[in-house]
Every structure is written in structure tokens, then in C-alpha cells.
């Protein structure tokens, strides 16, 4: 294992975050704060509590997940797509590094970024609404698993994308709708029965449900199911990445 390489990739990617602090950190924090102001305070004040939790506090886990998922996917996809786009990927391919080092470096940096943003948002949220975290260890575990698995997913998109449009396509047109429709702003028990069933096909529901459980102890689906879903997704992403490196798909001719 080339540890120096992992460190070099990780620090290089983190350097990009610090260089673009406004875009990388301030912007997601600001947009989430706006959600709190609009949904939590302005509209939320007219909505009665959901499952015993004030509406403002209820949406916190969903909002964090929204940011974590979109940020993980965009950061990790950009991290590997940009060298491909520039042509600097030649160095990565000609370096004495295995697939594992490359993935750990890029995905580790992307997951660190989204994890940091999630924690900053959590801190920001605590200033707007009264927060309660019943299972803090599980909360961190769900957060970490989500950051890592979606960064892996983003990495795949970064390897697959042929242009910037494709790079934006998945976070904007797939992740965001799935998160919005996955119960980030409501409990699925508030939906008509037919839509409850439809929502069960949305994988993001399981993430948000498990994550919200770690806060307030109530969930739309059993926590064990949520955990299994995340692990299956994580393994599927690892499998795809293994295949990409093995075949050199879009990397080598």
C-alpha cells in the first residue's frame, strides 16, 4: 500500500476545498440556513409538530442528508473528472498506485468534505431549532456511511461522465428529487397509502429514515433495514469501481 500516495491525493483534494472555501463550504451552509428560515421558521411555525418533534427540528436530518448526498456526489465526481478533463490523469495512471489508494485518496477527501459540511450544518441548525440527538454514535455512523457511500457513487459518476453536463446530471436530476421525495421534509405517514408504497421504492428514504431515527428515535422504516440498504449500496459502488479499474473503462485504452 502506497501510503504517501494516499496522503498526496487526499491533501491535494483537500487543498482544493480550502482554495474554494466559499464554494465548497459557505455555499451549502448558506443554502441550508435559508431552508431553515423558510421551511423551519416561516412556514414551519404554521405546521404542527410531526411525531412529537417541532417541524423545524424534524427537517434537520433530512436537510443534512440533502447536503451530504449532493455534496458527496459533486465533490467526488469533480475530483476524478477534473483530472480526466484536463488530461492530468496520465500521472495517476502512470504512478505506482493501486486502485485502492486512488479510491481511498479521492473518496476519503470527498467524504471528509461532506462530513465537515454536515457537522457545520448541524451546528448551524442548533442555532435555529432545539435539537435532540438520542443516539449520537448511530448518528455519526449513519452520517459517515452516507458520506462514504455517496462519495463512492460520485467517484463512479466522475469516471463515467463524458462532459460537465453529465457530471451535473446525477446530483441535480436524480439525487435532489430523490431526497425531496424521500421524506426529508415530511414523514411518509403523512402521505396517502398509495404514495407511501411508491415512496418505499425510493432508496434515499431508508437513509433519511435511519438518520432521523438517530435523532428522535422514530423512523418510517425499521433501522436495521436502513442499515442493510446503506451497506448494499456501499458494496454495489465498490463493486462497480473494482470493475472500472479492472477493465480500465474510460481510463485506459
Amino acid at each position, binding site marked *: 500500500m*502506497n501510503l*504517501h*500516495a494516499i*496522503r*498526496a*491525493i487526499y*491533501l*491535494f483534494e483537500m*487543498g*482544493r476545498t480550502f*482554495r474554494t472555501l466559499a464554494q465548497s463550504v459557505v455555499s451549502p451552509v448558506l443554502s441550508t440556513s435559508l431552508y431553515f428560515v423558510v421551511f423551519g421558521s416561516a412556514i414551519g411555525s404554521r405546521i404542527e409538530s410531526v411525531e412529537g418533534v417541532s417541524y423545524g427540528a424534524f427537517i434537520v436530518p433530512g436537510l443534512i442528508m440533502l447536503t451530504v448526498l449532493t455534496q458527496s456526489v459533486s465533490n467526488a465526481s469533480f475530483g476524478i473528472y*477534473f*483530472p480526466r478533463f*484536463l*488530461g*492530468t490523469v*496520465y*500521472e*495517476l*495512471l*502512470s*504512478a*505506482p*498506485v*493501486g486502485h485502492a489508494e486512488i479510491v481511498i485518496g479521492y473518496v476519503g477527501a470527498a467524504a471528509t468534505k461532506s462530513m465537515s459540511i454536515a457537522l457545520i450544518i448541524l451546528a448551524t441548525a442548533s442555532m435555529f431549532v432545539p435539537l435532540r440527538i438520542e443516539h449520537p454514535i448511530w448518528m455519526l455512523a449513519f452520517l459517515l456511511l452516507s458520506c462514504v457511500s455517496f462519495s463512492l457513487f460520485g467517484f463512479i459518476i466522475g469516471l463515467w461522465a463524458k462532459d460537465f453536463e453529465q457530471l451535473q446530471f446525477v446530483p441535480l436530476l436524480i439525487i435532489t428529487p430523490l431526497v425531496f421525495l424521500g421524506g426529508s421534509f415530511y414523514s411518509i405517514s403523512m402521505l396517502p397509502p398509495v404514495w407511501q408504497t411508491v415512496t418505499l421504492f425510493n432508496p434515499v428514504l431508508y437513509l433519511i429514515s435511519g438518520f432521523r431515527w438517530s435523532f428522535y428515535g422514530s423512523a418510517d422504516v425499521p433501522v436495521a433495514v436502513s442499515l442493510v440498504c446503506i451497506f448494499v449500496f456501499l458494496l454495489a459502488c465498490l463493486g462497480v469501481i473494482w470493475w472500472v479499474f479492472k477493465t*480500465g473503462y474510460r481510463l*485506459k*485504452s
Partner: protein
Amino acid sequence: MPAILSIDRLSKTYASGFQALREVSLDIEQGEILALLGPNGAGKTTLISIVCGIVTPSAGRVTVGGHDVIDDFRAARRLIGLVPQELVLEPFETPMTTARFSRGLFGHARDDARIEAVLQELSLWDKRDAQNRELSGGMRRRVLIAKALSHEPAVLFLDEPSAGVDVELRKEMWAIVERLRARGVTIILTTHYIEEAEAIADRIAVINKGELLLVEDKATLMKRLGRKHLRIELQTPCPAIPEALAGYALQRSEDGTSLSYTYDTQGERTGITGLLNDVRAAGLTLRDVQTEQSSLEDIFVDLVRDRG
């Protein structure tokens, strides 16, 4: 000298069906400078890319320092530095951060003193904190060299190092290559500038349409394939080539003041003595005689035309 790079019957056919390399075999000794010469699309970059791990070979085997580039890629690649043809750099990074990244990527601990020495040597130290996008083309080329040198390679590949650079920078590049050679670095450079190969290489490999046409010591190549031109300047212009000299395939200058004769230095008889005797017998008076060695370019053009 042991071969540091050994290429054995290497072939590459791309998915499109294009056969870029056909059974290329080549051994490169430690410390030598080999110029891989060939026209565009000859297979030079494909050859380098396979050695460096960027392109997967269809058949054949490559070892660097005795390590197979596929089975033992970590050990093999640690020895290799690559300076690509295109000026590809992260635009928002600096020479310092990009070189530091390369060093780490190739498995070396961070060593800013080493990076400083490399940047100083390449006259980049003053620009160490400038963004790569602000640098001129020549400087970017040097940053790419700095990246490759930051991890202290034993074998350095320079893919078209002087493509698109001005004469001054090209000379500077040659000076860098000379310094690296003095340190024992093996250098393989691809070029289609004959002048470059002639100026810095020890050996020359000529490749065309994926086939290695020859690999020869530069001086031997020039000697073996070289032809000389003998130019005879006359005291008084001759209106036409005299009958007696018709057998020599001479060329007369437009003003008739000189005649030139091309001969093979390796031929059993060059024909010079006979020619000079016959010139005198034809009543022409010599003013001066010059000989000129044919350039590598002439040799190259002949090779590619004859065998390509």
C-alpha cells in the same frame, strides 16, 4: 551495461482496429539517451504509454529495472518519470503543490528541500507560488519536467519535449537533458525533430507505422547510412557537363561555377579519385573542393520512404 528497460515483441491494436505497434523489441541501457524518431502517428506515444502504464498492451512484455510493468507495476513505475507531450497541468495549483503531489504519488515522503532543488534547477523557484494557468508555455513545460523529477526517476520519458517551444527553450531543454545524463538518468525522448535527436541522443531508434525500422548508435547510423556530397568549384564556369564526366551523375549549378557529386561513404569505391582525374582531363580547373555529410534528416527520409 545492463538493460534498464527491456521491450519484448510489444504489439498494440486499439479497439478501433488500428494497429499502433507491431512486435517492437528494444533494449535500453542504463544511462543512455535514446531518441525515438518517427513521423506523427508512428507509434511513439503508444510505446511510451504502454511502458508507463497508461495504455494496456495487446501482446508482448516490458520490464523496467527487471520489473514487469504489469505484474510488478509498483516497482517498475517507481523508476519511471514521464513528461507528456501535452501541457496538462491543474490550472489553479502552483508549481510547488503540483510537484509535491507528484512526489507523494510516486511513494516518496514529503521533502520540500528536494522540490526546491528541482524548481531552482528548472528556474521555477521564483514562480513556485504562481498558479499554473498564469505561467507561459515554456514554464508549464518545465513544471511538467519538475513533476517528473520530483520523484527522482531512474528512467525519464520525454514525449516530444520541444513540440511547440521556441529555439531558446529547446536549447535549454537540451541542457537539462545533458545535466540529467551526467547524473546517470536514462532518457528516452520521442521527437520528430531530427535536429533534436542528432544533438542529444546516444542511440536512435526509428519507428514508422508501428514498426521499429532500426536502432543504431547515432554515429554508426550516420556513418552507415550517411552519404557525402562532393562539391567542386571551378575557376571558370562550364556551360555544360563535359561528355567525359557523363558517367558520374554530376549536378551542375545554375551559373555553371560548381559541380556536385554524391557518393556512399561505405561503398567499396567512392569514385572520387577517378572523378577528380577526369575533371582535370576534361580541362576544367578547380578553385575549391568541399565535402558535406548528409544529415540525419536525409537518412530518416530515405528510411521511411524505402521501408515504410
